[in-house]
Each structure stands twice: as structure tokens, then as C-alpha cells.
């Protein structure tokens, strides 16, 4: 009975931990947040670096399916490198990453717009040649 109760509290604790780690790992997709962490020296803390390594379990498909912002995984992988962590102290670095991320984010909508334009042009050509 006591063991069951202990298990329950353990489960609840685990659930919370799951949620926290899920949130945290996705926050890593935010380059401004990373810059913030770097400037406060968190990346120099050995325990934090170990924690980042531990968070790599989110790459497994069973866990990855809960991620809404999958870009965080790429950031997590980059964060394993010391050089990247050091670079993130610069605000320019964070800004650059931010810009690139947003541009990439718009990649598909731009591609779709181009396709639509091409399609419209083609239809126009067909119309004029038909007549």
C-alpha cells in the first residue's frame, strides 16, 4: 500500500518532470533565450552542460512526437559543442540565428507563392494561346 502510494507520487513527480523538460527543451529553439542563457554564464556550468547532454533523449521518436517545435532538437545538437555555446554570448550571433530561422520558417509559404504565381502565369498563357 505504501509502495503504491510512493509509486503514485513518483508518477506525479515524473509527469511534472516530463512536462518541465518538454517545455525547457523547446525553449531552446528560441535563439534569444539561448543568448540570454549564454550571457548569464549558464553554459559554463558543467552540470548544465551535462543536463543538455541528458536532454538528447528527446531525439528518440517516442519522445520526439511530443515536440511542437522540432527545431529545438537541432539547437540542442548544436549546443553540445563548446564552440557554439561560446559564440552564443554575442548578441549578433543570436540575431543572425533568429533571422535565418525566420527566413527558413517562411520558406514553404514563399515556395507555395512562387508555385501559385507560376501556375497563374501558365493559365494566363493557356488562355491567350487558346484564344
Amino acid at each position: 500500500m505504501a509502495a503504491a502510494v510512493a509509486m503514485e507520487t513518483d508518477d506525479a513527480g515524473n509527469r511534472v518532470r516530463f512536462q518541465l523538460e518538454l517545455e525547457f527543451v523547446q525553449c531552446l529553439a528560441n535563439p534569444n533565450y539561448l543568448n540570454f542563457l549564454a550571457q548569464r554564464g549558464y553554459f559554463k556550468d558543467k552540470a548544465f552542460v551535462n543536463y543538455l547532454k541528458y536532454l538528447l533523449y528527446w531525439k528518440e521518436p517516442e519522445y520526439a512526437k511530443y515536440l511542437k517545435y522540432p527545431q529545438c532538437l537541432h539547437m540542442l545538437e548544436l549546443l553540445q559543442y563548446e564552440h557554439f555555446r561560446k559564440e552564443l554570448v554575442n548578441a549578433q550571433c543570436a540575431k543572425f540565428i533568429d533571422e535565418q530561422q525566420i527566413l527558413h520558417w517562411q520558406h514553404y509559404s514563399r515556395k507555395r507563392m512562387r508555385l501559385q504565381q507560376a501556375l497563374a502565369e501558365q493559365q494566363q498563357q493557356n488562355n491567350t494561346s487558346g484564344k
Partner: protein
Amino acid sequence: MENLKHRNYKSMGPELEVRELIEMLAISRNQKLLQPGEENQVLELLIHRDGEFQELMKLALHQGKIHHEMQVLEKEVEKRDSDIQQLQKQLKEAEQILATAVYQAKEKLKSIEKARKGAISSEEIIKYAHRISASNAVCAPLTWVPGDPRRPYPTDLEMRSGLLGQMNNPSTNGVNGHLPGDALAAGRLPDVLAPQYPWQSNDMSMNMLPPNHSNDFLLEPPGHNKENEDDVEVMSTDSSSSSSDSD
């Protein structure tokens, strides 16, 4: 005649002997110098020598036949040797081909195993794709213009409204974690501000708990994040932030 008596017949070569004997006989016939007994002796010697010759000839013939047979056998041996070498070459080639085939088959098996391990139902993949695209997490909304606060990552607002943010400020945050000042100031509420952000927790099954290595990195992760969240608040312009029990 004298020279005949003084020689030792047997020490000479057989041809010379015979020649000499015949010459002697011819001379003695002409000259009738030899005694009849001696003539007989010479004749007998001649016959004997002739016999020996015949024997030698037979032997030579026999040896010739044997030699011929030996040559034939040697040719056979050579032929068999080359056959064996040919077979050896073919065997080696076959072994190589088989080895390659086996190696490739093993590689194929390995890749089959790998593919099987990573197999995900297409339905799940489609569901996931839906989830991440519908919320504009990986693809910008079609009406996005610079100035739109939406981002491909969780924004400050979202971060603070989540569980991590709640841990610091259970009391000061508004209903459902919306920081009233912020939301109103923004003027528009993106639809991600659902009470439970889909990126924060999901229909999580109980056996999907994270691996517990909490002793490994010297610090308690939630406590650590608490500090972060605290500082995130300081970053914001929100007036409702309070200084909680941070170090």
C-alpha cells in the same frame, strides 16, 4: 700373326676387336698363316661378340620403348597438372564471388534490421506533420508580415505562461497563465494561448517518462529552470512581475 698373339683381346673396344678379328681372319685366309685351332678360337670369339651385340641391341630397343612410354606419361602428368590449376583458378573465382555475395547479403540484412527498428506507422507521421504545421510551428502563416509576434519557437509570452513559468509565480499570473498586461498590450492574442499549450504537454502515456538521471548533473533541473524563469521575468516589461524567492 705375332701381333695377334701379343694382344689382349678383351681389353679393346668391341668394334675394334671385331674389326681386328675380321681383318685377321681375312689375312689368315689369304696367307694360311693361322693354325686351325686358332682360327676356331677367333671365330668363336667373333660369334660371341656378335651375340653380345644382339643382346645390347635388344636392350637398347627395350630401353627406347620405356623411354617413349615415360614421355607419354609425362605429357599426361602435365595435362593433369594444368587441369588442376584450371580448377584451382575457377575455385578461387567462385569463392570470391560467393564471399562478395555473402557480404552484400549481410549488409542488406543489417539495413533491413535498421529499417525495421525505425519503422513508424505512416498514420503517426501524418498526424505529427499535421500537428506541427497546423500550429505554424514549422511553416510561417501565410499572412505573416514582419511585425507579427509569432515565431517558429516559443516566445517569451509562451515560455512564461508554461509550467516552467508557473513554478515561479503561481500567484501573480492572471487566469490561465495569461499575463494580463502583456496580452492586452500586444493587442492581439495569437490562438496558441490556449489554457494548455499543446507544446507543453500532450496525451502523454505513463510509460513515456523521461529517463531519470537526476543524480548525474549535480543540480536539480526544475530548480535550475526556476532561476532561468526568474530572470526571464526581469527581461520583460511586464509590470506584474514580482521578485520571488530567488537567490
